[in-house]
Every structure is written in structure tokens, then in C-alpha cells.
């Protein structure tokens, strides 16, 4: 029998009251319940538009329902030394009622109730860093869904809808950042992950040791022109700003204008036929694609338009600061500000060139 690391124990080496009979991945709890799956995780609670982490260590369990062993029960309870498991959340889950999925915020996952959004629950992983968290979620999903892919599809649809509900920033309104120190919006789940009997209390705020926003994966198949030194890894703003800012159920209004509607083939075509302009732009393109026809075609290609859209979204997201573009402006970016800054820069350059000549 494999020895089980003592995650549940206290400093005195006790086993926290659990009896783990690891037969076929199913174990038995102290009250004789049949535990089908467990994930070590903490709770996240929605507070308006932010998430507050419950710093306690806990476990999410799926068990055979006590009343009817054809049904399943979901429980979450704190992991405390020397006591048996006491569920704080405890409810029957019907097949296909809900699905577990990772959230955009790294280290976090949600239990999404497909038909009853107000029952949604959120958690942050407390499993070791190299645990296969996706596999754990999938295992649970197979327990509570007859058709996992359908459930994920419906869950995905919903969270995509939420993610696109961006408020076009009004003049003078800033995205309110969570104030470090007073609002522990999110703990660094990674810091909590090391399995040891004495686990550090997470600091209420931290620029995460592992930046949730991954810098560009240069070298992993991505080619960036050598002259693009200014544009290598633009990392997103502080992780504490705007976390879950899109939750809140704003209804989608007319989406704001984006770069694809500005950089149209009609506008850009004539410019690309100009030799001197083309000359300046060639270094930003792959060697194989530097002929004029290639350029005009490029603007229309799905690959280019999709990157253009993504960049446009980033500017409009309210999460970027003007300073991240290397322009002489600061403050939260939006498309108009961004375009004006570029125009201003070009105007300055023109003025300088005129003075020098």
C-alpha cells in the first residue's frame, strides 16, 4: 500500500481523523461515506465584482449520497487537524446539473450550475503544483455528468458571454483596482501548494511569484522580428487590478469600434502600394511574405485579422495602461486614447524632422 502524504495531519503527526482506504481510487470517510473524488481547495466568494479568498485549507468532495447511493453529493469543508470532516457546503448534485471548469484566473476553478447561475461556486486549488488539476476536474465531471462534453460546452458558452460583457470605458471612469492590503482579492494559490504539515498563511496581496499573465512564448514557435525589441513581452497589468471585473452581469451594448474597422483594406491598400512606406514595413514581416501582393492579401487573411482583433480587444479591455505601449501617455488605455497618442507621436516626429532640415 502506498504511503499517503500527511496533508491532513497536524504538527503532532496525527492523521486528522481521516481513514484513507485507497481501493480503486475510492475511499471511505469517517462517517462511512463513500468518497468518490476529492480535491484540495479553498473557497472564493463573490463580493460585488471581486472575489475574496477564504484563506482556510479545505477539501471539495464528491460522495455517494447518504440518502440514496445512486445519487451524488458535493461537499466542501475545511481541513483541520484532529477533527473529522465537517461539510460547510453540502448538497445533492443531480446528473448534468453542474460542471467543474478552470477559470481564466490561474489556479482557480468554478462549479458552474448550467441552469442556475446564482448557485455557482468558486474555488482555488490547494493541490501540489505538479498535480494534474485538469484531470482531477475531469474525473469529477465524469462523476456528475452523463455527457461531460455537452456540459462543458454549455458552461463555456456562458463564461464566454460573461467575458465579452465589457463596459466601454466612459470618459473619466477608471477600472477600480482592488486596493492592496485591504482587499485580499486573490491569494497566490501557488504559494499554498507545497504539501507540508506547516503551511504558511498566504499574504493578502502579492504580485504573484508565478505571474498569472504569461509573457509571450518567444522561441516556442513564435517568430518576432529582431527589430521588434520594443514589443517583446507586454505583460498585463498587475494581477490584482480588474480581477473578475467583468463579472457583474452588465448587458452588452453596442460593442465599441475596433482596429479591424479602422485598418480596412481600402484604407491600407494605397499605403502599401507606396514603395517608401512598404520599405519601412518590410522588416516587420516574415521574409517569405514581402511582395506587394502578399501585403495587400495579408490584411484580408484570417490569421492577420484575428491578431488585429485580439490586440484591439486588449486595448479596449480596460486592463492595459498606456505606458505599456511605449507611448508618451499614461492612464488606462482605450482605443481613442491609443490612436491619439500614436498621432501625437507622429506629429512630434514630423515637427522634429522639419526643424532639423
Amino acid at each position: 500500500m502506498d504511503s499517503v502524504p500527511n496533508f491532513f495531519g497536524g504538527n503532532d503527526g496525527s492523521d486528522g481523523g481521516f481513514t484513507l482506504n485507497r481501493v480503486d481510487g475510492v475511499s471511505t470517510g469517517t462517517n462511512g461515506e463513500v468518497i468518490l473524488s476529492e480535491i484540495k481547495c479553498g473557497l472564493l466568494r463573490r463580493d460585488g465584482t471581486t472575489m475574496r479568498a477564504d484563506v482556510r485549507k479545505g477539501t471539495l468532495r464528491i460522495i455517494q449520497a447518504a440518502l440514496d447511493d445512486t445519487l451524488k453529493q458535493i461537499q466542501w469543508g475545511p481541513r483541520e487537524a484532529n477533527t473529522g470532516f465537517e461539510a460547510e457546503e453540502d448538497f445533492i448534485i443531480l446528473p448534468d446539473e453542474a460542471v467543474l471548469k478552470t477559470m481564466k484566473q490561474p489556479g482557480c476553478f468554478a462549479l458552474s450550475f448550467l441552469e442556475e447561475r446564482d448557485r455557482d461556486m468558486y474555488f482555488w486549488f490547494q493541490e501540489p503544483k505538479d498535480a494534474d488539476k485538469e484531470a482531477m476536474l475531469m474525473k469529477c465531471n465524469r462523476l456528475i455528468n452523463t455527457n461531460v462534453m455537452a456540459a462543458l460546452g454549455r458552461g463555456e458558452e456562458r463564461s464566454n458571454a460573461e467575458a465579452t460583457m465589457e463596459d466601454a470605458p466612459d470618459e473619466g471612469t477608471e477600472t477600480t483596482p482592488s486596493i492592496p492590503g485591504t482587499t485580499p482579492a486573490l491569494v497566490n494559490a501557488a504559494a499554498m501548494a507545497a504539501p507540508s504539515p506547516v503551511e504558511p498563511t498566504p499574504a493578502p496581496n502579492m504580485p504573484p511569484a508565478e505571474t498569472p499573465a504569461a509573457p509571450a512564448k518567444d522561441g516556442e514557435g513564435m517568430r518576432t522580428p529582431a527589430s521588434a525589441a520594443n514589443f517583446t513581452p507586454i505583460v498585463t497589468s498587475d494581477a490584482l487590478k480588474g480581477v473578475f471585473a467583468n463579472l457583474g452581469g452588465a448587458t452588452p451594448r453596442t460593442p465599441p469600434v475596433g482596429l479591424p474597422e479602422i485598418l480596412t483594406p481600402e484604407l491600407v491598400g494605397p499605403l502599401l502600394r507606396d514603395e517608401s512606406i512598404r520599405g519601412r514595413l518590410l522588416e516587420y514581416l516574415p521574409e517569405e511574405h514581402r511582395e506587394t501582393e502578399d501585403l495587400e492579401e495579408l490584411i484580408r487573411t484570417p490569421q492577420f485579422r484575428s491578431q488585429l482583433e485580439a490586440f484591439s480587444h486588449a486595448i479596449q479591455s480596460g486592463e492595459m495602461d498606456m505606458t505599456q505601449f511605449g507611448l508618451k501617455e499614461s492612464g488606462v488605455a482605450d482605443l481613442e486614447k491609443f490612436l491619439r497618442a500614436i498621432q501625437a507621436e507622429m506629429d512630434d516626429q514630423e515637427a522634429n524632422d522639419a526643424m532639423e532640415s
Partner: protein
Amino acid sequence: MEWTTIESDPGVFTELARAIGVRGVAFEELYTLEADELKRLEPIYGLIFLFKYRGDDGGEVCAIDAEAESKGVFFARQMIQNACATQAVLSVLLNADDKLELGETLSAFKEFTSEFDAETKGLAISNSDVIRDAHNSFARPEPIVLQSRPAREDDDVFHFVGYVPKGKVVYELDGLRQGPINHGHFGNEDDDKTWLDVAVPAIQRRIAAYSTNEIKFNLLAVTKDQRISLRERIAELQGIGDSIGDSLAKEITQLSSELAYLESKAEDWRNENIRRRWNYLPFIFGLLREVAAKKQLMSAFEIAKKNREKGASDGQTH
């Protein structure tokens, strides 16, 4: 150790297969299951059915064939969502290795995993650096990562299912199920059914169910790269020299034009893959600067805004 999402595009898969060492294989999108079209693409090593989830899977409930794996069918459980496409590609290729050139990497992989159970095979795929790196090399560059990623076209949950013949049986390989599904025999003494005669009706039933549920789907065929056989045949005919007759000369012309078409398609795919991996952000900045230098930037913005508002007030809410 992450797998990124990649586009489910025949050009991507063709190059992906090449990147992991497979030779002589091409992927084609199928728009019809008519016999003529399938014949044109022969030999077909397998079919991959991909669909976006929008609701209930209209697929029929089928029993798992518990004997299949012991008969040599390679089946792996899907362990990672993002690896889905590559997993389906592998499930076809690794079951067709008697007909195509797997290459060193996949041959070694098949050997290494031959005694594993389905879940462990799935883990082996997830943990394979070579396969994962090839897969990830098709990811779109993301120079900016937001906390809240906006929804994209390719964000939908895709699922991929492979159909492949092995040992005179047609199997359906779905990484989310427990094992291979047996759709029936072919090529027995008393009939001249091909494997497609068995697979196509099974797929058509699936399509019918999805159409009623408005589920979008695509079908890809894994075929032999026909350019190889075309080149061989053309060379053969040209070798006959001056004594070649009219009809054979005509054949050369026809084959050459087919070959040219396939080469140009391959060229298109090559270009698409170059664009997929290129970070266009510096170019976009450069372009915006040029537009600004011409003093056209803010006016373009105003025009776009007006058009958008006009569209909205015409009742076209997004």
C-alpha cells in the same frame, strides 16, 4: 507542460503530422460523403469527425468493444482538452501504421506504450515533449495576455472522434469514452464492402442527429499524400519517351495539372502556417504610424464610429 489550443484546419494537421515525423500523409476537408469524392481521395487511412458542442450530443449510445485493444487497436483516453485534435490525429495514424510511414518518433512512441492501458496511453501523449511541442508550435502568438480573455471564434469546445479500419473492423475512437466502439465488419469473403461502406453510414447517422440539434461539425479525411504517387506516375510515363501515344500524353497533362493544384494548395497551407505563427504586433504598430503620418488615422476612427452607430440604430444590434 501546457497544451495550447490550435486551429482545426487540414493545413495545420498536415504540417503537424509532418512535424512529428510522419511522411506521405495529407489531411483533406470533406464536404460530402459521396462515393465519387471518397474514391478521388483514396486511399483514406481514417476519418476525423469534429464538432462544436452546443448542447446534447445526438450521437447514438454505443457499446464499447472490450476486445478491441487486445486485438491491437491503439486507443488512448483523452487527458487534456486542448490536446484533443492531436489526440484524434494520433489515434488514426497509430492505427494505420501498416499502411503509412509513421516515422521514428511515433514508431518509438507506439512501441513504448504498447503494453499500457488506455489512460496511461493518454498520459503518455500528454507528457510527450515532441508531440506537445509540435502541437503548440501552431498556437497563435499572444504577446498580450489579459486576465479576461475575450471570446474568440475558436474558443468553442471542440470534440474530435476518429474512425479507422483495423483488422476488418471499423472502430470509432473517442478519447472521452472508455474504449473503442465497434461499428461492424467489412471485407469478408461473402461481401465486397470496404471500410468506408461501414463507416460512412455510421457518420451519416451522427450528422443527421447533429443537424437537428444545430451542432456544427467538420469532417476530415486522413489520406495518402497524392503528390507522391502523381509524381511517380508522371515520371513513369515521361520515361516512355517519344514512343508515347496520344492518350498517355493526355494522361501526363491531366496528372500534371492535378499535381500543380495540389502543390499550390500545399503552398497556401505553408503560407497560412507562417502567418499563424508570426507576431504581427510590430507590423500593426508600423501600419498605424504610417496611417497617422498621412493624417488619416483619426478620421478613419471617426468614420468607423459613425458606421458602427449607424449599424446599431438600423436595428442591427450585435
